[in-house]
Every structure is written in C-alpha cells, then in structure tokens.
C-alpha cells in the first residue's frame, strides 16, 4: 500500500477532531488553548500534504501560507496566555465555566 494524500488527510482530520474536542470540553483556559493549537497543527499538516501531493502551482503558496499560519498562531498564543493571566489576577481562577461575569 502506497502512503498517499488520503493518509495525511485522514490523519489531519483525526488530529483536528481531537483538538476540537479538547477545545470544547476542557475546563482550564490553557487547556482550551492547547486544543486550539492542535487544530491549527492539523490544518498545517493538511496544507503541507496538499503542497506535496497537489498540483505544482500550489506547492509553494501553501507552504508560505503555513508560515503565515504559524506566525499568527504565535501571536494568538501570546495574547491568549496574557488574557489568561489577567483573568487569573482579577478572578483568581482560569476555569472557563467560572468566569461568568457577562452571564445574565
């Protein structure tokens, strides 16, 4: 059996779903961020798989796109963790089901 595009796509889909479940179900805000990171990694893996196996025109632009995604993910993690610190300083918790200040 030759390992082709479908293998990487299925792997990316499974990784995305695991990250999605972690992001939806974790109590801790940092746990939610970990899930978002896994989802971004799954998308990057899918893009790189298309870069390897897709048509030659998209081979370079998908990799440039992955570089941009990694840069934006780094910015997102920095701001997200700073927000977690601020929420912790004000509420003494970073549990997402106890930060209910906006709940009616």
């Amino acid at each position, binding site marked *: 059996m030759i390992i082709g595009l479908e293998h990487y796509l299925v792997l990316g889909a499974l*990784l995305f779903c695991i990250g*999605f479940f972690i992001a*939806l179900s974790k109590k801790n805000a940092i746990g939610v961020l970990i899930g978002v990171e896994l989802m971004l*990694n799954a998308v990057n893996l899918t893009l790189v798989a298309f870069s390897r196996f897709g048509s030659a025109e998209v081979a370079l632009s998908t990799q440039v796109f992955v570089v941009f995604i990694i840069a934006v*993910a780094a910015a997102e993690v920095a701001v997200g963790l700073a927000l977690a610190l601020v929420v912790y300083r004000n509420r003494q*918790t970073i*549990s997402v089901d106890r930060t209910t200040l906006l709940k009616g």
Partner: protein
Amino acid sequence: MSDFGFHLAFWSLAAMTLGGASMIMISRNLIHAVIWLVLSMLGVAGLYLTLSADFIAVVQVLIYVGAISVLMLFAIMLTPRAERDNSQNIKTGGPAAIVVMLVMISTLWVAIDTDWGAVREAALTDQARLIGESLIKHYILPFEIGAVLLTAALVGAIALARQDDEDAAVHASSLQAELDGDGSVDPVDVIDPPIPSDGEAGS
C-alpha cells in the same frame, strides 16, 4: 516511496501525533498535558519531513516545540492558585462529543471519498530559498502585515500581563498569605514577605 522505512516513519509518527493528542485529552495534570502537546508537535514536525517540507519542519520545532510550549508552561506556573487539573467539563462534554463526531464523520468522508486527481511524484526542492524569495517578492504585503501583527500582539501581551506597582504589592501580599497557608512552596523563594507569618508557623 513505498519502501519499508517510509512506512515505518509514517505509521510511527502518526501514532506519536495521535497518541500525544489523545493523552492531552486523558491526562489530569495540565503540565503533563503540555508535555504531551510537545510530543504531538514533534510528531507533526516529523510528518512534515516525510512530506519533504524541511523548512516548515524546522520552523515547527523552533516555534511550537521551543517557544509556545515554554510560554504555556510559564502561564501555568504564573497562575498558581488556579487548578492544575485538566479535567473535562461535565456540562459541555456530551454535546461537544456529538458535535465532534459529526465533524469527524464529515471530514473523513470528504477526505476519503473525494477524487483528489493525479498525485505529483516530485517534491519541491530548495524550499527555504523559494519561500524566502516569494515572501519578499510576491507576498511582501502580507509579510509586512504579519510583522506588524506580531509586534502589536506581543506589545499588547506585555501591556496586558504587566502589573501596576500598587497592584503588584497587593498581589505579592496575597500570594504570600496563600503560600503560608499552602506550604507547598519554599518561603525562601518569595522575594518580599510583607505579612509576618509567626502565627502560621505552628499550625
């Protein structure tokens, strides 16, 4: 490409990636979860290498394995009174599982059922040079916007996480009280102990 070593690399790296991600879901300790995240990211970097995307693999190791995991560990250490536990939320766990199952079925269906056309045999070579050239020629405007975004995000993160001076004094005193009651951290580590802890020592 269909040789034994490639198969071994793909399946072991896939097991590493998915196993690490599953252990994040299972593990109860948040610090362990970050360590499993590092394992999973390393597996993804190896998968980039099997896709002959060497530049992306190096960037993945540098940024995700190196920087982001350390940043997450810092954030966990800086929130000492928050629970370390990484447990599932009982209320959202059931609906989340249903939604995730639907997403998984649909994405797997698309990935397997679609005819993706002819597979290109030759991989892109000399990628670092090509990516760098296209970043400063064709993608110069997104590149500059990304630079501004990173600068603004990091300055914003520092501005958010920075404590005011009177804020810091209150925080330090409350932290000291917490550490005295907790007893899990060596009091020598605290720089400025403002609360006399003579009453606490005996209890």
